[in-house]
C-alpha cells in the first residue's frame, strides 16, 4: 500500500511488536492490508444489497401505483427518526475510532456504548414498525389484506388489483429492511465484544484496527439505510401524483 516501509524490515524485526503478525513488515502495512480486506468484504455486501435494489427498481416500474399506495401506508415518522438515530450512531462510532486513535480508553468505551444504545433504539423502533404492519395485515402471506380496515380508518381504499400488487412492495420492504436489521443485530453483537475487549485494554493507540474496521462496517450499514429510507418511505408523498 505504502512504499515508505520497504527499507524498514530489519528495524521492524528487531524490536518486535506482539501485535505485529510475522507476514507483515510493519504495523502500518498490517493495518493497510486489514483495511483493504474489510473494504473488499464491504464491496461484496454492496453487491448483495445491489440485487435487492435491482429487484426493487424493476417492480417499482412495473407496479408504480401499488408502490405509491403501499409506501404511503408506512408511517414516515418512524423512518425519519430512525434515519436520524443511525446518523447519530455513525457520529458516535466515528468518535469511538477517534478516541481509540488517541488512546483514550474511557472515551472509547463511552462512545461504543453510545453506538450500542443508538443501535438498540433503531432496532426497537423497527420492531414497533413491524408490529404495526402485523396489526394492519400488511405482512405478505395468507393473512395479507392491504385494504384491511382502511375504509373504517378513513384511508383511501386501493382498487382490488392494486391492493394485491402491494404485497410485492411489502415483500421487498421486509426483505430489505429485514436484511438491514440483521446487519444491525450482528453489529450490536460485535459491539458487545468490542466494549468487553476495550474494557480490558485490547485496543492500544498503535493497534486498534478491529475498532476501525468495525467502524467501516457500521457506517456501511448506515449508508444502506440512507438509500432504503427514501426508496421505501418516500415513493410519493405529494397530494397529487
Amino acid at each position, binding site marked *: *500500500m*505504502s512504499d*515508505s*516501509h520497504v527499507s524498514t524490515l530489519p528495524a521492524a524485526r528487531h524490536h518486535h511488536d506482539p501485535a505485529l503478525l510475522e507476514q507483515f513488515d510493519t504495523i*502500518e502495512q498490517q*493495518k*493497510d492490508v486489514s*483495511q*483493504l480486506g474489510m*473494504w*473488499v468484504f*464491504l*464491496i461484496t455486501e*454492496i*453487491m448483495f444489497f*445491489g*440485487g435487492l*435494489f*435491482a429487484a426493487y*427498481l*424493476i417492480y417499482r*416500474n*412495473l407496479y408504480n401505483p401499488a408502490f405509491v399506495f403501499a409506501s404511503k401506508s408506512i408511517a*414516515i415518522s418512524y423512518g*425519519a427518526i430512525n*434515519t*436520524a438515530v443511525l*446518523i*447519530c450512531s*455513525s*457520529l458516535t*462510532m*466515528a*468518535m469511538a475510532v*477517534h478516541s481509540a*486513535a*488517541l488512546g483514550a480508553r474511557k472515551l472509547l468505551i463511552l462512545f461504543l456504548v453510545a453506538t450500542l444504545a443508538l443501535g438498540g433504539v433503531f432496532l426497537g423502533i423497527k420492531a414497533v414498525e413491524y408490529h404495526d404492519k402485523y396489526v394492519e395485515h400488511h405482512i405478505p402471506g395468507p393473512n395479507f389484506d392491504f385494504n384491511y380496515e382502511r375504509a373504517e380508518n378513513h384511508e383511501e381504499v386501493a382498487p382490488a388489483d392494486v391492493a394485491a400488487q402491494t404485497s410485492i412492495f411489502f415483500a421487498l420492504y421486509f426483505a430489505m429492511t429485514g436484511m438491514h436489521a440483521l446487519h444491525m443485530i450482528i453489529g450490536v453483537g460485535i459491539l458487545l465484544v468490542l466494549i468487553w475487549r476495550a474494557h480490558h485494554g485490547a485496543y492500544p*493507540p*498503535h493497534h486498534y484496527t478491529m475498532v476501525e474496521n468495525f*467502524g*467501516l462496517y457500521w*457506517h*456501511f450499514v*448506515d*449508508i444502506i439505510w*440512507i*438509500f432504503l*429510507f*427514501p*426508496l421505501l*418511505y*418516500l*415513493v*410519493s*408523498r*405529494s*397530494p*397529487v*401524483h
Partner: protein
Amino acid sequence: MSSAGTGHIVSPKIYIVIWLILLVFTGLTVFAAFQNFGILNPIIALTIAVTKATLVFLFFMHVKYSPKMIALVIGSGLFFLSILLVLTCADYISRSWTT
C-alpha cells in the same frame, strides 16, 4: 494520502459538521417528498441519498484520507453495481420494443 505513521487523525469538528449536514439533508429529503416535482421527485430523493452516502464514505469512513488503493477497490465495486442496475433496467425497459 499515505497512511504511514499512526494514520490520519480527523478532527472531531469535521465529524460534527458532517453529522449536521447529514441531519439537514434528512429533513430536506422528507420535505422534498411532500412537494410535487413530478418526475423529478425520485431524482431529487436519490441525489440527496447519494450525496449523504458520499459524505459518509469520504469522512466517516476516511476514504478521503486512505490509500488510493481503497478508492480503487470502491470504484471497481461501484462499477460492477452499475452494471447490475443499468443493464438489468435496460433489458426491462427495452424488452417490449418491437420493430
